[in-house]
């Protein structure tokens, strides 16, 4: 079968990438200035004994090499460690944050993929018209807007209409499931929209240029000569070829979903993983950072692998 080699090779490559990233993550946070201990012992008059005790408790008195070995061993057992900050297992912390981030980011990304692809295809097909001009200008506008600025503008615009911060109304007492869902969804609109609009710009531009390139190909002229109608040409001949760069883009942005969106989560006080990472950096919460970056690494590498395999499926010319 075509491609057993290819799949094995790509998968092996992905596994190695994750291992290298894990190692770099481990080293990187320990190279950062500041120490976990000075944060943890931020009680007045912390004695040298207390600091030593804390160091021992968290295993920071061991050599870097020994720490690394312990880390890998625990990782192999699926143990991500315990957060320095709140003494909870890192996996628990991550899961709590991820649970909040995923729906919000996914909503924005899906919005961007659907509408960006649609307007990108239309813009390419209606090349040279006012419609294309308007689409491209809008897309460029959103794409070049700083995320946090767009978020703030939306906050100003929609204050009073939609909730602009947090994830749920804390003053709802014992809400029914539907009330709670409605509440969370209404809180989700603005952050998702901010993310969606920025990504929408990117998608429109990339889909348009991929489509334009494809529509200029000779086989499109052949398809017209064969008597196919315009929409059939797009569907049967152009899209599949234009999908190659688009598939990569989609896979890559799905990979970054778990990274959350630090800026957006900050603007909208969304208790997601981006915020958790930011807080962990401030606290030098090494296990938490390592865990979060491990999650991010695996997700990005995994979706890259998906993109590779998809590419292979879409393009018969790829053999290695």
């Amino acid at each position, binding site marked *: 079968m075509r491609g057993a080699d290819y799949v094995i090779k790509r998968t092996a490559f992905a596994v190695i990438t994750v291992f290298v990233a894990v190692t770099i993550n481990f080293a990187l946070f320990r190279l950062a200035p500041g120490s976990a201990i000075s944060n943890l012992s931020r009680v007045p008059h912390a004695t040298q004994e207390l600091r030593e005790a804390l160091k021992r408790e968290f295993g920071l008195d061991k050599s870097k090499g020994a720490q690394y070995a312990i880390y890998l061993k625990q990782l192999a057992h699926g143990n991500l460690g315990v957060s320095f900050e709140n003494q909870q297992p890192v996996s628990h912390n991550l899961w709590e944050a991820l649970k909040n981030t995923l729906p919000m980011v996914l909503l924005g990304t899906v919005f961007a993929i659907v509408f960006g692809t649609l307007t990108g295809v239309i813009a390419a097909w209606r*090349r*040279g018209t006012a419609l294309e001009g308007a689409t491209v200008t809008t897309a460029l506008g959103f794409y070049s807007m700083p995320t946090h600025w767009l978020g703030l503008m939306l906050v100003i615009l929609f204050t009073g209409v939609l909730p602009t911060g947090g994830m749920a109304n804390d003053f709802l007492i014992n809400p029914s499931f539907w009330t709670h869902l409605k509440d969370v969804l209404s809180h989700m609109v603005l952050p998702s929209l901010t993310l969606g609009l920025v990504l929408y710009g990117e998608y429109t531009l990339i889909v348009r240029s991929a489509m334009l390139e494809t529509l200029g*190909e*000779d*086989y499109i*002229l*052949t*398809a*017209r*000569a*064969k*008597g*196919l*109608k315009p929409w059939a040409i797009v569907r*049967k*001949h152009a899209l*599949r*070829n234009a999908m190659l760069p688009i598939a990569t883009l989609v896979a890559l942005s799905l990979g970054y979903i778990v990274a959350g969106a630090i800026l957006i989560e900050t603007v909208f006080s969304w208790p997601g993983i981006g915020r958790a990472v930011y807080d962990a950096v401030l606290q030098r919460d090494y296990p938490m950072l390592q865990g979060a970056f491990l999650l991010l690494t695996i997700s990005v590498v995994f979706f890259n692998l998906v993109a590779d395999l998809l590419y292979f499926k*879409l*393009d*018969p*010319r790829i053999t290695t």
Partner: protein
Amino acid sequence: MTGLLEVEDLHVWFDLQDGGELHAVQGVSLSVEPGERLGLVGESGCGKTTTALAVMGLLPPSASVAGRVLLDGEDILAGGESTIRPHRWVDVAIVFQGAMNALNPVRTVASQIVEALELHGRARGAQARAEAGELLESVGIPAGRGERFPHELSGGMRQRAAIAMALSCRPRILIADEPTTALDVMVQAQILELLDALCRDFGLALLLVTHDLPVVAQLCDQGTVMYAGEIVERGSVDDLFHAPRHPYSRLLFAATPDLDGEGDEVASIPGAPPRLDRPLAGCPFRPRCDSAFSPCASLRPRLQTVGDRHAAACHLNGVPAEAAR
């Protein structure tokens, strides 16, 4: 004389980026009779491919077209896409340059032939696939190869497959735009033989667009020479080769390398064709012509009959009375 395909006074303008216009085809008239083979020759940029694409209504939106294209007397360009589309592939099919990516790289060869068959209601499903296989066999490709992707076939095979696809709906006219360019000489010869045989077997009329004169000599009955968007001479291939009545045709044929010729150097025509984005005064070929004389600078020569189905646009054949006035 009623042709199967008649092009009457075809003009094509392209909008340029700077707002100007390029008059790429300037009043071309052609006639192809059933089963006839017409060669359209000229230098690069003389408007021959543009003419061929205009016949099928395949020019990009930046082009404006005037004139009529009659198929069995019906003006197929009159209503835009809606009047031309039913004739595409069914009556007029086209084969593009060999080097071109004329087949979709992500679909199998057979599926692209099946698509044409199904689109025009020739066959469906298994029957269409069987017919696609037969078509491939008829151009010398084993039917099983149809399940391959275009990149898995050689350049010559791809061109054969493109020809098989063009023949799928039994068109009456085949337009071949530089069908052998970018193929090696042996493959070129095979493709030409194939075209020759297919035209004979199917009674196809052929409009062959090429800059390769020997190809025209080998394959065509009639020839039309274009220069700077105009027809400068047309006639039987015999007449064109042996008794050209336009200096451009004469110099063009002289520029063809001759296998047993004594000359070491290949002749060429100095200079370049005029730019077509501005109006021309006089004969467009005058600056490069070796026999220009007084009327050439100011008077535009018209195509005039100089023999049986032979016409040329040159003042050497006599300045027409009404033009000389």
